[in-house]
């Protein structure tokens, strides 16, 4: 069944890039987990947890305390090993629905320039994102009710236009695919889709078309992934400064389509601040503004119709984005606080004075302790002595309670002068809130761990532990209440669902705004000994739903940057009102009357369909 077109190797791009991700993603990336195939946590011959590969700072290092943490805090056990299936089972891949007239038309007009595939592994990779439910299914050889029937790899805007034109002509369902890091079921194919589904993978649209150094902008194809973009720009002395935690794999088009947020938004802005111009191919043709003016008063912003459309209106092909000269100086930092409340108060003050560093994140006590468990290698005697002295100083002399204290990690960027000034300013504020600077090293560690978190879930799953994260944004006066209530709701809900071992329920404040903050929750649960016949994924879903209800009741938003996808459509009415949903619907109906972009994200179709989808998954 492996029909594969031959791509045209000639490129027209001004900048040749060497993309990190190959055409067939599964060659480099895990098909049933997060990230690179060669990078993973495993229990080594000494019975300690080690991180493999050579790509990360942590690679090749042993994390001696992690296993103890897992086994004592979560009551995990080495005997409860539940490895993933090694290869996807062909029996579980549904037969493709093929539209022959489309295929013939495609092969005759585009076959020579656009690569395509109907290979089982390609189809599987393009049919899911990275929520727990999806990964669970992959690891346990479960069947996806519906997968894309074809995958195509356009190389340019005009390729996309041609593909969409054909799709409209033959009534094909198109689902755009960027980096595949969705955590909202946005990539799952609607189970009741009877038409042929084609996944449009933008990964070959990965060129920087031009740099405009006078205006400090760049025209970039939407398929480029974060790390490639920053690397290529850096060669010329620039950066975009947009660094979501998924930047190793997620794509520019995906950021635009989901209204992404980067950790350094305090300096560079979120995606909506960075985008100057965006081009999208819809079922009716290409939509874009005709001016690069920095701000325009021309009715509701069309860019904002495109941003956050989650693949329901069209395919983002090219983006003009702001760029900045690379910062002269970059400095990490960290602060410890006696408790979470002081930490939040400090962050609020920093935001009030608009003096936030590029990134400031506040971990709660649970995560702070977890961070301790992630330290690499046992250090020398002297080192641990110093550590102990520090600990004594903080707990005994400063009166911090080890079960209350928490930490903030900081990243400063700018000119050396700016950085030094800002650093002093922030530490001065922190001092008012009983915060103590805790060194650069801890800050750096904190940020490198950002990329490890997703890998950790895979080893958790190996030992019957499920984990997930979700985010929200909330006004300042509700931050503390929301954090406490949601964490508590997770625990009580687990208890209610018959989870025997206390779950790990933790949060961190990851972004500060003038009027509020972004909060990230982590929820880890050991599903051993759950109630007889209990399905861990189902229990997990119930808990997550209760937690989301709690978030909303606490005045938190439905999503800060993950998006709605299909996992959160049941709340969208509550979030934007009936009329809001109606507005979105009418835009959709105008731009895409035949529902070519039929991913069914964002807008709830009707209640039954939603239930249907849930039941199927």
């Amino acid at each position, binding site marked *: 069944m492996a029909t594969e077109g031959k791509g045209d190797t000639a490129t027209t791009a001004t900048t040749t890039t060497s993309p990190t991700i190959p055409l067939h993603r599964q060659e480099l990336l895990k098909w049933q987990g997060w990230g690179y195939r060669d990078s993973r946590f495993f229990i080594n011959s000494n019975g300690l947890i080690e991180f493999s590969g050579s790509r990360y700072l942590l690679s090749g290092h042993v994390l001696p305390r992690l296993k103890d943490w897992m086994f004592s805090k979560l009551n995990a056990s080495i005997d409860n090993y539940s490895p993933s299936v090694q290869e996807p089972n062909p029996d579980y891949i549904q037969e493709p629905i093929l539209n022959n007239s489309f295929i013939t038309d495609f092969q005759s007009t585009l076959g020579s320039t656009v690569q395509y595939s109907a290979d089982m592994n390609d189809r599987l990779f393009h049919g899911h994102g990275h929520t727990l439910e999806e990964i669970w299914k992959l690891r346990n050889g479960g069947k996806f009710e519906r997968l894309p029937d074809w995958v195509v790899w356009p190389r340019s805007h005009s390729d996309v236009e041609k593909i969409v034109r054909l799709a409209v002509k033959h009534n094909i369902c198109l689902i755009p695919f960027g980096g595949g890091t969705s955590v909202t079921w946005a990539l799952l194919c609607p189970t009741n889709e009877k038409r042929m589904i084609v996944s449009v993978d933008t990964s070959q649209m990965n060129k920087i078309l031009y740099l405009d150094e006078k205006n400090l902008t760049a025209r970039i194809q939407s398929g480029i992934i974060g790390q490639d973009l920053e690397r290529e720009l850096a060669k010329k002395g620039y950066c975009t400064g947009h660094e979501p935690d998924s930047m190793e794999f997620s794509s520019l088009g995906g950021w635009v389509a989901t209204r992404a947020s980067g950790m350094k938004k305090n300096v560079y802005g979120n995606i909506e601040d960075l985008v100057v111009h965006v081009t999208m191919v819809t079922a009716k043709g290409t939509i874009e503004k005709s001016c690069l003016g920095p701000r325009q008063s021309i009715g509701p912003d069309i860019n904002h119709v495109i941003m956050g459309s989650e693949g329901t209106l069209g395919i983002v092909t090219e983006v003009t984005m702001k760029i900045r000269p690379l910062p002269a100086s970059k400095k990490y930092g960290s602060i410890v606080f006696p408790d979470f409340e002081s930490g939040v108060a400090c962050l609020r003050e920093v935001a009030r004075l608009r003096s936030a560093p590029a990134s400031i994140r506040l971990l709660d006590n649970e995560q702070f302790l977890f961070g301790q468990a992630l330290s690499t290698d046992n250090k020398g005697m002297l080192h641990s002595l110093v550590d102990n002295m520090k600990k004594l100083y903080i707990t005994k002399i400063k009166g911090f309670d080890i079960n209350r204290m928490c930490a903030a990690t900081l990243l400063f960027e700018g000119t050396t002068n700016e950085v030094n000034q800002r650093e002093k300013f922030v530490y001065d504020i922190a001092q008012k809130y009983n915060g103590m600077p805790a060194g650069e090293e801890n800050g750096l560690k904190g940020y490198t761990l950002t990329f490890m978190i997703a890998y950790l879930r895979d080893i958790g799953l190996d030992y019957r532990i499920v984990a997930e994260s979700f985010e929200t944004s909330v006004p300042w*006066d*509700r931050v503390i209440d929301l954090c406490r209530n949601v964490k508590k709701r997770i625990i*009580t809900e687990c208890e209610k669902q018959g989870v025997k071992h206390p779950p790990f329920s933790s949060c961190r404040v990851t972004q500060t705004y003038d009027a509020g903050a972004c909060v990230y929750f982590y929820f880890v649960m050991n599903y051993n000994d759950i109630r007889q016949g209990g399905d861990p994924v189902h229990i997990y879903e119930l808990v997550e739903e209760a937690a989301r209800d709690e978030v909303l009741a606490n005045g938190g938003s439905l999503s800060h940057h993950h998006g709605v996808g299909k996992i959160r459509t049941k709340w969208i009415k509550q979030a934007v009102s009936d009329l809001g949903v109606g507005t979105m619907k009418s835009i959709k109906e105008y731009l895409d009357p035949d529902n070519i972009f039929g991913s069914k994200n964002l807008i709830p179709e009707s209640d039954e369909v939603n239930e249907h989808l849930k039941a199927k998954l």
Partner: protein
Amino acid sequence: MSVFNSLEYDDLISRHRQSSDILWALKYWHHPLFDIKEQSIKSTKLINKNTQISSIITPVHYKTLPRNSEQIKSDVLNSLALKYTIETLDNEANGYEQAKAIIHEMSHRLNIRSARFLAFVFSKIFNQVYENIYINRRGMDNIYQLYSLTPINTSPTIPSSPITISSTLFAILNTFSRSSSSINSDTNLSSPLTTKHYLTSPRIIYLPTHRSYMDFIVLTYVCFEYNIPMPCIAAAQDFLGLGLLANLLRNCGAFFIRRSFRSDQLYWTIFDEYVKTHLVHGDYPLEFFIEGARSRTLKTLLPVRQGMLKSCLECYFRRQIDNLILIPITINYEKVLEDNLHANELLGIPKPKESKSGLLKATQILKKSFGTMNIHFSDPIYVHDAYESFKKQEENKSNNHSDTFNRSVPRSLQPRFICQQDAFTVSEQKFSDEISYRVVNEQQRRTVIYPITIAAYSLLKSPIVTTSKDRSILIEQLVIDKNILFTENTNILEHFSSQYQISWPVENDKIILKDRLLSIYSDVFEMTRNNFLTLKMSGDRLADASILMKLIMYRNTCLHIFAKPAYILLACQVNSQFPISYEQLKTYYHFFVHLFAYEFVYDQFPMDNMNDIYFDKYLSYWITMNYLIPSDNSTYQINSNFLQQISLITSPFEQYARAYLLIYEQENLSSEKNLSILIKIYQKALLTKLDPNNIISILASSSNVISNALRTLNFTTKSKILSELRHMLTKIFQPKSTHLRAKL
């Protein structure tokens, strides 16, 4: 006598009799969640620093908890809500001065030293006047669990060793020394609950029934006994007249609020903020009486303390707290401390103003016995769970398309720092009504029925007690009537009130029964001839009426159990000549349900056009009991073989209905709009015609019955009017009522 076995019930008195009161009062007592000793010098520094910075995100340091009353006051005075209210009132200069005065008057000064004093004094008193004080162990275990304490299988340790000087010294040292630490935080840490423990303390609201002044003290006393945090108690401002004693109450956690202050925005804000600050910080549980007042009639009152409950619920709706835990408590007294006062008050003899001299008189009661007290802690109601299931119910009920032009502002858009009286959305309001009914019902379900209730039921079965035959009853008859009321009808009672308990001598021992009734209620009964229990009627009009009123009160304690099923019997009984059709019966049933909407508390307040789901259940039950005989064309008639039983069961309800008729028959006395004044006018008119031998007349002169009858009128104005009600009642009781009027 006891049906309260020691497995289910803990008896405080029997334990206290074995040990020293002073040692007990001086025992080691600590808050289970907060350790005052944690506040080391360094950490107090942290706290001070934190409070100095006025941040929008009130950084309440965990180490400042529990706060003392001064800190609570200043928290309220510094609250944004108060600031906002004073700003809107446009009286800034005076505003804070007024606010200070108000909060000074309101605030409690809960402290452990006063609690110890109270514990000591009242352990003396309780040991004197009560035979037993029972507390259900399960309820206490629940509370222990909420505080993450190990349940009390073994009773809390009380020094039971003989008093020696050294042990006393040790106890005193223990109390006052700050160095002794008994909280072992390390052992706490290992428990899986620890995570929660650090997250938040339980927000508990105790909701006891209110029958006596004693209620104010009992719960604090019990909390001290069991080492759980003592509650702050909402009390009416009338108590401030008690002077020193009010101060003692204040020191034991009572805070005093005005009777009505809806229109006073400043007072409202302070009250609202004062209640909320306790819940938000979670350092003290709260206690208030959901019935709003002491029930003089000993009947459960409709829940009214809406303001207080709403303030509490709002903390949850605003999510300042993650959950709210309501614990209904039923305090059952075998003899209510001030039943004399209650009876007099109902008959319009004014209640003495709370004063010290009144208290001195009250000391005489110490010489009497008040029998048994039973305190039942119901299972906690978690507001979050209740609200979730309420919302689901509402969703299922109607597919309501929300009116896009008439939106209610969701909680997430409402500012949390403003005190708004009308911030509740429709569904929140509905929920708060529902939950208050649930609480009151839960209290009602846990009623304990003492022998006096059955004696009263028996004695009052005929409405007129002129002859000496009417005034006395054979002990054997009590046993028979008890069986009719409670043994034969267990099934139906189970349906309505599964949890009631009867305190009754084992094997119907008549001597114990007789002795008990005579010893506890010596003011009501005397013994004549052999085994005849006779009312102590003196011939004085008011005194006799008051004795009967007392009996009526004790009978009231069980009426909620019979109310609805008895309406069916009552309807059949008054129509006993003819069979009554199903439809007609149902109409009568609903008529009574509505008529007594304020008299008896059902599972919910009766709606217009309601269709009571229990009707068929009760009907079929009476048929299986053979009390009613159905005929072919779905009509029903009373089985005359059971006339005696039926008239026993229905007697109180018939009396109430007739009393209502008597009230409604008063010619339009006044066009007064104010209910309380109107009640007084009615009562005056009815008292002049008072017949101390006629229970109906006494009932009709009771301020409570008048009030309920008048409120029923108001509530039904939409569907029914006075003349209709009167007509219906006259129709039902026609023959007898004309006769009765002639007599009067």
